[in-house]
């Protein structure tokens, strides 16, 4: 045998090395390990239709990584039925867990196209496994908590940062976006006392001063009153011209906010008159700019509370995304964010209700007793607001007053609906409201609905009825609302038939199996190009938590709170619980970030994502999330069917 002197001419195989550096779990390994692997790799070609592993038969000699092409992975069960487990493309691996456990394959792997694979010899694979814990975990852990937290951080860091909301706002917003047009003017010979009274009456902090020929000559602020009058003991009957600042500094309404800020800082003043077409259109203050810019939830809560007309609340909605984005940047969990968003909408709801009720004469607010249902009740609002609510009122109203209540409620509810519609336009996704006569009525009517649902739980009715299983009354609700909630809970949870219907509904939609290139693979093998995170993930998680809680007498409403209660009662074990929580958290974050990005570019926020926009890590994690749903379906199937 000749000696091989050619080793000096060998080079690190670029093809394998560069490929490994692109995919998990290799890219997480040291470069030197990747180099070693690359040198030992062999390329195998499997024509379309080749069975690479046969379930329980093939001796696995190599760990496989798909370089090009695709495979399907399926499981043959005892009764010879086949179920698709995965479709894998470039970068997908197989054989790992079986090599580690030293077992025959537990699935069959077959090529769907002509496929080239990188083969890593068993001994080398096992050695690298033994030396790299993270590498082993990748193949063995059913649901990677490390992976999810990694995906969570990746999504957060890369995606939130790309949302430029705050910066854009400050540099693109104009003075005209912020000014208060309803400014007041006093004559320069008015007394300081009169001026103070006008400020108090209109709840304003400044007003303009005009001379005899109606020219604006100065501005008076609360600060002038405090520092020049009160603290110096000045006579209140002196003309306002003695304390006004003059002349009034102005800024064009088209100027940008930061220009206004610069001018104020330069002049050391806090008020500017905004000028358009040579006349003053309004006043802008440092406070206005601060509030406009503020991304703090507290300020936004206060602002909502301070509004004196429903119409003036409109501009506040636009701030919610900015506030939430800041919270997320500061590290708030996605589920906390949906809680905060819900609190905003609660406040808006309560405030609007109060303001509209105040407009209608003489009726008491408590009559409406709005009860939130569905997502709003679960405190899982996103940037696609939902104002689903119903109205329940007393059981025994007098004949004539029922009419009054009905008319009153109808007017109030439709005013509210119009208001929400005008605020959110097409983004609003409300389905249920008390403006619909079906969803408002006395307790006895509701009681009948419940009886109908429980006695004849057919699928379309179940879909409607399940909204009412998530209920929450707003602060200040009356006893009627509370008794309604109790009634509902008892009747539903004691109806075996209804619970079975709910379980069947939950099981009716199978989670997708996997991702394949730019598409998502359904359990039946079909491929879809868009994934609705709401209907395919968020709702099923909520459905599971609701179903199990009703069965076990848990009265929580929020999905995470329900899951935690179920774990406390040992209905689900802690491992599963942490998987579900992590999966739920991940999908919520994905929703929020995608919606933020849509808002950022002026598009309508939604729930549908395009798999092409996801990173490899996000795809893997979503796939794990589908896997968690499969487990939950198995639990429900076992307990209810």
């Amino acid at each position, binding site marked *: 045998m000749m000696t*091989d002197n050619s080793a000096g*001419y060998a080079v690190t*195989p670029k093809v*394998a090395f560069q490929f490994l550096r692109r995919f998990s779990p290799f890219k997480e390994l040291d470069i030197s390990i990747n180099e070693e692997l690359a040198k030992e790799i*062999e390329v195998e070609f499997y024509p379309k239709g080749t069975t690479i592993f046969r379930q329980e038969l093939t001796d696995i000699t190599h760990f496989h990584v798909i*370089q090009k092409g695709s495979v399907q992975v399926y499981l043959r069960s005892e009764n010879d039925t086949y179920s698709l487990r995965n479709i894998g493309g470039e970068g997908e691996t197989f054989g790992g867990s079986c090599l580690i456990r030293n077992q025959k394959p537990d699935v069959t792997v077959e090529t769907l196209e*002509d496929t*080239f694979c990188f083969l890593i010899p068993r001994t080398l694979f096992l050695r690298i496994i033994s030396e790299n814990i993270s590498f082993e975990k990748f193949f063995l852990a059913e649901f990677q908590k490390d992976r999810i937290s990694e995906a969570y951080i990746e999504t957060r860091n890369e995606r939130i940062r790309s949302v430029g909301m705050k910066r854009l706002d400050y540099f693109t917003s104009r003075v005209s976006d912020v000014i208060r047009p309803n400014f007041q003017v006093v004559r320069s010979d008015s007394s300081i006392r009169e001026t103070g009274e006008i400020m108090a009456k209109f709840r304003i902090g400044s007003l303009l001063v005009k001379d005899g020929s109606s020219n604006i000559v100065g501005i008076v602020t609360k600060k002038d009153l405090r520092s020049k009058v009160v603290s110096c003991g000045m006579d209140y009957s002196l003309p306002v011209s003695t304390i006004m600042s003059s002349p009034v500094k102005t800024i064009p309404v088209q100027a940008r906010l930061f220009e206004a800020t610069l001018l104020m800082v330069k002049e050391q003043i806090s008020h500017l008159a905004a000028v358009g077409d040579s006349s003053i259109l309004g006043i802008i203050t440092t406070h206005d700019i601060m509030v406009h810019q503020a991304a703090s939830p507290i300020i936004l809560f206060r602002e909502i509370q301070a509004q004196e007309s429903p119409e003036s609340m409109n501009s506040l909605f636009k701030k919610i995304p900015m506030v939430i984005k800041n919270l997320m940047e500061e590290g708030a969990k996605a589920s906390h964010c949906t809680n905060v968003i819900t609190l905003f909408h609660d406040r808006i709801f309560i405030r609007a209700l109060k303001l509209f009720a105040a407009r209608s004469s003489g009726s008491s607010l408590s009559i409406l007793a709005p009860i939130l249902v569905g997502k709003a009740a679960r405190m899982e609002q996103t940037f696609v607001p939902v104002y689903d609510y119903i109205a329940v009122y007393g059981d025994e109203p007098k004949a004539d007053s029922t009419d009054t209540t009905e008319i009153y409620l109808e007017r109030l509810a439709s005013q509210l609906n119009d208001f929400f519609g005008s605020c959110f336009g097409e983004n609003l996704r409300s389905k249920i409201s008390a403006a619909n006569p079906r969803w408002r009525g006395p307790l006895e009517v509701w009681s009948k609905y419940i009886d109908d649902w429980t006695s004849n739980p057919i699928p379309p009715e179940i879909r409607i009825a399940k909204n009412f299983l998530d209920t929450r009354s707003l602060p200040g609700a009356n006893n009627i609302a509370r008794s309604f909630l109790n009634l509902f809970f008892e009747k539903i949870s004691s109806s075996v038939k209804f619970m079975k219907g709910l379980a069947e509904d939950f099981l009716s939609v199978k989670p997708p199996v996997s991702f394949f290139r730019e598409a998502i693979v359904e359990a039946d093998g079909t491929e879809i190009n868009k994934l609705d995170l709401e209907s395919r993930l968020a709702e099923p998680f909520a459905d599971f938590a609701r179903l199990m809680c009703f069965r076990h007498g848990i009265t929580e409403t929020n999905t995470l709170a329900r899951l935690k209660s179920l774990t406390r009662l040992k209905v689900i074990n802690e491992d599963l619980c942490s998987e579900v929580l992590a999966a739920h958290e991940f999908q919520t974050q994905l929703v929020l970030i995608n919606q933020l990005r849509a808002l950022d570019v002026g598009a309508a926020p939604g729930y549908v994502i395009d798999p092409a926009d996801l990173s490899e890590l996000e795809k893997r994690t979503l796939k794990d999330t589908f896997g968690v749903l499969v487990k939950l379906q198995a639990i429900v199937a076992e307990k209810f069917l």
Partner: protein
Amino acid sequence: MNLGLKRLFKSLGFLKHPSLRENKRFFYDLNWNKPLEDYDFVVFDTELTGLEPRNDEIVSIGAVRVRNLRIAVGRTFFCYARPNKPLPKDSTLIHRITPDQIVGAPPLEDILPDFVSFLHGAVIVGHFVSIDISFLNRATKSCMGGIIKNPFVDTMKMAQYYEDHRRRRYYEDAAQKLSFGLNDLSKKYGLPLFEKHDALEDAMQTAYLFLFLMKKFKNLGISTLRDLFTGQKKAAFSSDQDSYSA
């Protein structure tokens, strides 16, 4: 012995390099009837200063071994070789090797024995391989006193055979013009693609094409080395050295 005399003796075959003697012995005894998986293949490609064997020279060799019908991507051979004459300008346009890259490279004479060792025991594979073989043999004849005896297979002819077969089978339009260039075939068959005109990358590309065709040939009843060479005479996509060098 002076250098001129040594060259003369070598070219007349009196001073055959030991590697070549070993090479001849190995292939003299070769069993042609084993399944294809049992043979080693070396897929190789050269970069040349031009296409005229009398005047032009090899400036780069890239090769990769195929064992068990799998590409052993770590078993590669790659080198630049310094030609005796300066690199013609127009050749740089094709293979992207610049005079700077080869100025410090060893002469082909120093490299050849190692490359012959690398080829040991393997059937040679190349795309339009006869050109590369003729350059290689011209070089070994002058530097090592003989030619290599490895049988060789041409992937271009394999592809022609495969396409002929497909046409017959699927009644595809025979008039349809097909390109049998390495790159066009690789695209047509959906192979992973490599950079063009680098000896090792081209060898790697050829190896993928070879692997693809070999697996497809299994369905056409080609299972031993003899099938590949003699069983498919009509195809004539391969040759052993004797028939070529005669």
